């Protein structure tokens, strides 16, 4: 923690970054995100096993970006989110400095994104063990049982979109559920609408999800919706042999697109 604070102070004092996105102590034993612009306030930064939120969600937020160059305290899922955001041209590598945190809590010094990429390559990239077990249990069910499991879970959904808002990869300023001409998904929270929403969300994250589990943690009613996207992590790996967020130049497995495409396929 001491090294993290020193590093944050150094970045702010030398004006290398304008803001540090990290964790501070919150209320009732919780931790929460903090945005530090003054090096004198960097002492409030903490890092411990409670600091699991995916802070990369803030890298595309207008009010955070307007500070200027951002430093971010980043565990592996955050590093991988950064890779996806750079790959998808939502974040410029020049606009971010990563204060990496290793699996055992040590501060990692990444000179640039390439160094971070080498670090990521050496890490275990599959779904966390706990979720692997849950997915294995679910996958043993037959199709009818799986359908019933998810119908029961989705019946709790209130369409608050905490799953979407907490995900760094859900950065669209206008989500498909907010289009009403045509209305792809019912606005109301009912069985059909809830299921359609969760399927749509999962499919939009197929090959892009980096297994942080933030969507499931954010859900106020406890729907394990992260298992849907994590299942697709396994699928993307088995069909295409890749994990998302391992380099800054990845094309998405389901929608490969480059700015210099001729687009002659558009009729």
């Amino acid at each position: 923690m001491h090294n993290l604070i020193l590093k944050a102070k150094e970045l702010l004092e030398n004006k290398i970054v304008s803001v540090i996105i990290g964790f501070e102590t919150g209320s009732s034993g919780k931790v929460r995100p903090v945005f530090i612009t003054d090096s004198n306030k960097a002492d409030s930064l903490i890092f411990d096993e409670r600091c699991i939120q995916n802070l990369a969600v803030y890298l595309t937020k207008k009010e955070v970006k307007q500070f200027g160059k951002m430093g971010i305290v980043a565990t592996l899922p955050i590093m991988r989110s950064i890779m996806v955001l750079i790959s998808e041209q939502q974040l410029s590598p020049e606009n971010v400095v990563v204060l990496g945190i290793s699996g055992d809590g040590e501060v990692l010094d990444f000179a640039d994104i390439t160094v971070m990429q080498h670090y990521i390559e050496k890490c275990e990239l599959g779904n966390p063990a706990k979720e692997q077990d849950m997915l294995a249990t679910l996958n043993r069910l037959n199709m009818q049982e799986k359908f019933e499991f998810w119908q029961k879970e989705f019946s709790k959904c209130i369409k608050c979109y905490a799953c979407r808002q907490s995900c760094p990869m859900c950065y669209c300023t206008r989500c498909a559920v907010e289009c009403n001409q045509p209305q792809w998904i019912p606005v109301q929270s009912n069985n059909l609408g809830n299921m359609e929403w969760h399927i749509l969300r999962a499919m939009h994250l197929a090959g892009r999800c980096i297994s942080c589990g933030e969507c499931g943690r954010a859900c106020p009613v406890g729907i394990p919706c992260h298992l849907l996207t994590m299942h697709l992590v396994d699928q993307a790996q088995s069909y295409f042999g890749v994990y998302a967020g391992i380099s800054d130049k990845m094309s998405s497995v389901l929608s490969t697109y480059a700015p210099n495409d001729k687009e002659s396929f558009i009729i």
Partner: protein
Amino acid sequence: MAKLYAKLSEDRKIYAPVEASDKKVNYQYNPDFKDVTFDHLQSTLSVKNVVFPKVENLFYFTNSKTESSVTDIDLDKIPEVVLWGAHPCDTAAYDVLRSIFCWDIKDEFFAKRLEKLTVVGLACSTSDAYCFCTSVGISPDAVKGSDILLLKLENGDYKVSIITEKGKAILEQSPDLFESYNNEAEIVATVKQRFDYKQVTEHLKDSFENPFWVNNSLRCVGCGACAYVCPTCACFDIQDEAQGSYGRRYRSWDSCGFGLFTLHTSGHNPREVQSQRWRQRVMHKFSYMPERNESLGCVGCGRCSRACPVDMNIAEQLEVLQSI
């Protein structure tokens, strides 16, 4: 107590709190009495959906090339409901909702549901760090909004206070289920007062441009969890949904935390960024509502702060705002 529960559910739907396997408590219609919890701190969702369902059909319509017709909802079909075991913050919230839905024009859906509702309140015997009812003029044993209030006693019995005519009817319906109170000690939770809401309202008048809002809401991710678990948030969206020539208009919960909430057709959004939306949430409850509805828009249940994925703790912020 089981007999009272059975009696009340004879001719009405009963809506009572049940703890699920994941330890989350939520209200269900007609659960078995043995599954009903009496010791819950707080349900995840509030009980506003009894009077303001997350989806309410407003009317049905048919369209053809030559004519269209509208069929109203038969409000008399709205069932009689007994709400069982709601805490004082939740029952007080019905008054707040009434001040919104019956402010100028009486919302007939809300009013009918409230008319058909009987509330068996349950005073709080436990509290946690997120509870702040005493800071907004309510208390763990407040009677507001209840028809009868149950209060746990040290010997395991419950003291019953009859509050309204509806409550009196319950007593008269089954007088043999009640006995006289013998001054047994009560178990009532303690909730520390954290701020003076009148001071908050006063200070908010001049704080619209205060940097406080940006500084304290950068972490807000802009979901609707706080609004949807809130017992007093009443914003809704209105949509038409049709299949072929037949369809319906309904209203469903909405949230001022969403970017789309105030987006104009022109593309202009008066609340373009999250800090403006967070400010709106606090201002509406603690400044605009006291001014226009003569009612505070918060009952201190603390659900929003428990549900928030990024620890936006409203009571903590109100403590600062009372002296800003």
